[in-house]
């Protein structure tokens, strides 16, 4: 298995060393170029928006980057119409995380149970199909009536969105477990519970993790839409209020904050995924670099 390793203290750089260092330099140049073009694109986009909003179109409707930036600075240095911006962020985040956790756990549990039990799955199939067909976002209005203006109605909205996203993947993952692996475990002496823990859950994990990425996005949507339908705090309320006062910069500013939160969550989930799925072969991106 071990490759030949160059002896330490080898004198002059060999052909191979030169080839490696030139390949590295090529990779560096490429990365630099990609980043440079990206920055250029953003500059062109923001610059043309700023210019056209100053000279051509009405910034009252379309706002402009400098106004949005000013709004964000305003919110973070002073305060919003409903108190500190951090309070709003923390409210929305709490709702999203709670809905995500509850919906995720419920989706995984029910998905695996139904995936492993043909009978229950057959019985419940039409109901699940119907529940999935409901435009669930409308439930947000109902939840405000049921649970009031506090956090719980937003958690419920986030929950219902996350649940279905995770449930269908966990269900599919539990169904697609390799029969050969299950048979092998049975022969080795595994009982039903052992098969569930050592075979079914790990095989469904890659399915479930794939769904969690979009699920956190759904959790934020649930929380924000919930706040839209009636709330006393939160980013959705800020946006709703900005809409009510024709403050288009406020809407953009709220959007940017939510996007940043979603990106950080996405990054955390990728870390988790890497940790849980480190047994998988490296992704196809790591192919040999041509020299």
């Amino acid at each position, binding site marked *: 298995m071990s490759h030949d390793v160059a002896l330490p203290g080898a004198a002059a750089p060999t052909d191979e060393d030169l080839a490696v260092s030139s390949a590295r330099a090529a990779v560096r140049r490429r990365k630099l170029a990609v980043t440079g073009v990206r920055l250029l694109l953003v500059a062109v986009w923001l610059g043309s928006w700023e210019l056209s909003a100053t000279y051509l179109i009405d910034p009252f409707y379309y706002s402009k980057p400098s106004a949005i930036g000013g709004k964000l600075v305003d919110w973070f240095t002073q305060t919003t119409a409903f108190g500190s911006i951090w309070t709003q962020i923390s409210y929305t985040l709490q709702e999203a995380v709670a809905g995500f956790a509850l919906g995720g756990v419920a989706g995984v549990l029910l998905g695996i149970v139904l995936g492993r039990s043909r009978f229950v799955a057959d019985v419940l199939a039409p109901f699940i199909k119907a529940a999935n067909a409901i435009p669930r976002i409308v439930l947000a209005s109902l939840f405000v009536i049921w649970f009031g203006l506090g956090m719980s109605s937003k958690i419920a909205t986030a929950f219902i969105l996350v649940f279905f996203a995770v449930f269908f993947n966990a269900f599919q993952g539990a169904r697609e477990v390799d029969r*050969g*692996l299950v*048979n*092998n*475990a*049975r*022969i*080795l*002496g*595994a*009982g039903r519970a*052992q098969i569930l823990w*050592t*075979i079914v859950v*790990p*095989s469904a*994990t890659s399915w479930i993790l794939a769904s969690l990425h979009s699920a956190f996005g759904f959790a934020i949507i649930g929380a924000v839409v919930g706040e839209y339908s009636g709330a006393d705090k939160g980013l959705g309320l800020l946006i709703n209020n900005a809409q009510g006062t024709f403050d288009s910069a406020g809407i953009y500013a709220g959007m940017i904050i939510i996007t940043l939160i979603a990106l950080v969550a996405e990054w955390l989930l990728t870390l988790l995924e890497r940790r849980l*799925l480190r*047994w*998988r*072969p490296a992704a196809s991106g790591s192919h040999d670099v041509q020299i």
Partner: protein
Amino acid sequence: MGETERAHACTLAEVRRERTVRIKRKTPAIAVNSAKDDLRGLAAQGFTASRPLRTVPAMTSETVPVIELVGATKRFRSASGGVHTAVRDLDLTVAAGEFVAVVGPTGCGKSTTLSLVSGLEPPSHGRVAVNGREVTGIPEGVGYMFQADAVLPWRTVLDNVTLGPRYRGATTSDARDRARDWVGRVGLGGFEDYYPHQLSGGMRKRVALAQTLVNEPRILLMDEPFSALDVQTRGLMQAELLRLWSGTGAAVVFVTHDLEEALVLADRVAVMTAGPATVKQVFDVRLPRPRDAEEIRLTSDFLDVYREVWESLREEVQITRERMSGRVA
């Protein structure tokens, strides 16, 4: 199998046919036959007369066969709604410590035979017994190596091998000790912490072998375990299997479509008919043990047995080919 069954008469023709393939048995305990119900139990009186010296442990008349299939039939509902008979009226008996290879044309139903013995599938008709007891669930002391990789990709080599002992209630440290021992024995020392995707096909087979053998099965079922390997690796794995098996006293049923492999490994070779599978003939492989898996195929004795068995297998392969070409046309 009792005296009464043994007393069942054999038709003369059947005796003659069996004779021509030089089957010599001492007791019905190791009898294998493709005969119908009235011939069940076989061991016509003539067979006990001369029995050449064999290197496998001698059987006594009291020995209970470890595996016994009597008139076993397995039918499946096919996807088109019809009934597919995979195995029909199959009789096969395997003694303790015996290495039996089952050869037959591709897709004839050989694997189904193993799933009947392992208890993964119940027979539609007939009797399947392991250690004298009817198979209802998975019998005690059975190991099964599947054709496809059955190692868990999310567990390291060592953790894969600990599965068996852990399932059977061993403590973590005990299971790890036993697993480490077996990982070494199959030649994977130093690879304990590797994941299966980091190993070659042959190494993954070694993991599967260790995973099965760590439970110390008395009966080892192997379903074309090496068929996916390249020829050189396959030869090496055959040698490894013989090394690990010798001295364990475990009975092995090794299913393969490769006659050469069957003859290299086994004490007896059962030739199956083209599907639905049933035992056509059984041949003794009188090659000395211990065998050098890679050299033995060059000896003239080996070629003699090969020719003899191939004569029987060829017809079945021919039938299968004709069916396939009929389907293609």
